[in-house]
């Protein structure tokens, strides 16, 4: 690692050009993109929400459908940002050589990383909000407080974007992402309280789950979807922000190392 690689990021307004490029591509591919991000959580919501919901009844004082929907919107934000940060960034960096094209213009590597982070946040919102809307239509959402979850989707996106981009920076090929998905993304999805309260886990497992960000995201989103304000905000918000900031710094350092040779 050189001093230049480790120096603080110097993002500029040009980062929005990278963001805008991604938005325009997304607009072109909106149908397959929505299908991909929307399909799976929708199936969970219907299948588990109604199927399992009949047996479970209420969880934490709310109908199971509400409990599940509030977890799924948060995990959809996580999944979307993670996949965008890994697969899409890798595609643009390696297969399409898009970054090479950008680096022949006044844009610089720091603008690219910042633009990709901003875009991952945006994409998390674009994926999680439709699930939230469907949840409203299914009667799983109780109050307008749920609207406040939307800016949270953005923060959740940022929080998972950094680590995903770091993984992309190290990836020799697409197969490499399986490790990150199998070791972190999927376990978080299963254990962080999307499907059942984390209090049902053994103590040591709860500790691990609370080090990872998804449980904190759900701790904020779930009450809002259920129609109340989260009883505790500070610590959860702090964890998400910390992951976003540290992830962004690390993403900048490692993408620089990969691109500036």
């Amino acid at each position: 690692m050189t001093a230049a690689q480790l120096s603080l990021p110097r993002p500029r307004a040009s980062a929005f050009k990278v963001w805008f490029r991604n938005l325009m591509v997304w607009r072109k591919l909106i149908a397959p993109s929505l299908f991909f991000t929307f399909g799976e959580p929708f199936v969970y919501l219907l299948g588990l929400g109604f199927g399992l919901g009949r047996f479970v009844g209420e969880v934490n004082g709310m109908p199971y459908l509400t409990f599940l929907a509030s977890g799924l919107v948060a995990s959809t934000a996580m999944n979307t940002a993670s996949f965008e940060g890994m697969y899409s960034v890798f595609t643009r960096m390696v297969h399409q050589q898009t970054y090479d094209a950008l680096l022949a213009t006044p844009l610089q590597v720091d603008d690219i990383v910042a633009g990709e982070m901003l875009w991952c946040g945006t994409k998390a919102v674009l994926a999680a909000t439709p699930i939230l809307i469907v949840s409203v239509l299914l009667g799983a959402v109780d109050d307008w407080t749920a609207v406040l979850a939307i800016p949270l989707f953005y923060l959740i996106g940022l929080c998972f974007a950094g680590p995903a981009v770091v993984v992309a920076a190290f990836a020799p090929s697409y197969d490499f992402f399986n490790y990150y998905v199998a070791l972190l993304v999927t376990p978080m999805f299963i254990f962080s309280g999307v499907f059942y309260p984390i209090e049902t886990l053994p103590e040591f497992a709860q500790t691990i789950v609370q080090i990872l960000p998804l449980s904190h995201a759900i701790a904020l989103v779930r009450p809002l979807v259920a129609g109340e304000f989260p009883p505790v905000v500070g610590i959860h918000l702090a964890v998400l922000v910390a992951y976003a900031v540290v992830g962004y710094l690390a993403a900048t350092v490692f993408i620089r190392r990969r691109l500036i040779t």
Partner: protein
Amino acid sequence: MPSKAQVVEAHGLTKRFGDRTAVDGIDLSIAQGGCFGLLGPNGAGKTTTLRMIMGQSPITAGTLRVLGLDMPDAVREVRRRTGVVPQMDNADPDFTVAENLKMYARYFDLSPRSIGARIDELLEFVELTDRADSPLRELSGGMKRRLSIARSLINDPELIVLDEPTTGLDPQVRRMIWNRLRQLKTSGKTLLLTTHYMDEAERLCDQLVVIDHGRIIGHGQPKEMIETQVEPHVLEIQGERTAIDRLLESCPDIRLETVGELHYCYTHNLAPVLSCLESAGQLTYMHRPANLEDVFLRMTGHELRD
């Protein structure tokens, strides 16, 4: 500052990757206008040199000024005034031809409204007007390369950097691209091009350097280099080794280079060699004037590079 602006001025420019020295202290002085060629076998350090000039690769040692500005500090200004045609076409596959140009204009802070007429002009220049709304996947390799050239001109650059601009293209497209590059030269732009096609360098370059193992091993104008570095006549000979040996004995005034099955016979004096060849028999041959490829092979040797 010299009176005539130098577009690129490098002294002792060096790039090391760990233990490997890719560019080993080269000096470059590229004058404004015309086409400057960077020639060399694969892995000679051509692309690395271009990347340093574009501020994409940190300089290990030496000094580099581009468009009169110190690199790498002036990287953004240099890129603002430079166009790049990359070795591998990297236009956005999800956009159409025109959308690619519009989006690229944005990266240079050119507003999409003000750029409309320029995009039409550029599409006409590279003969892609009727393809403006085609998605990239419908474009042939030649069309994609032409789009890359149009894209490199979007910011009306003073310097255009082309990394192997016609590699992998068919003869028609190559000729069309050469014509366009000549037009750009005429309009006063400076072209900096890498190639390992010697015919391309001979046709386009006013000045060139030959790089090998990261060092400059020759420089000059193509015509002058051909005249001074190699004999004017070349005979490409095929045949039995014994017959070749007889030829060498009977004809002392020749220089012979062998690449695989093919023998290159260089001479100042054609007539005696031809009569030697006739008497030696069993040899098929073809006579041609010396070209830049002969200069290049003489300088860089005949062994294969990967």
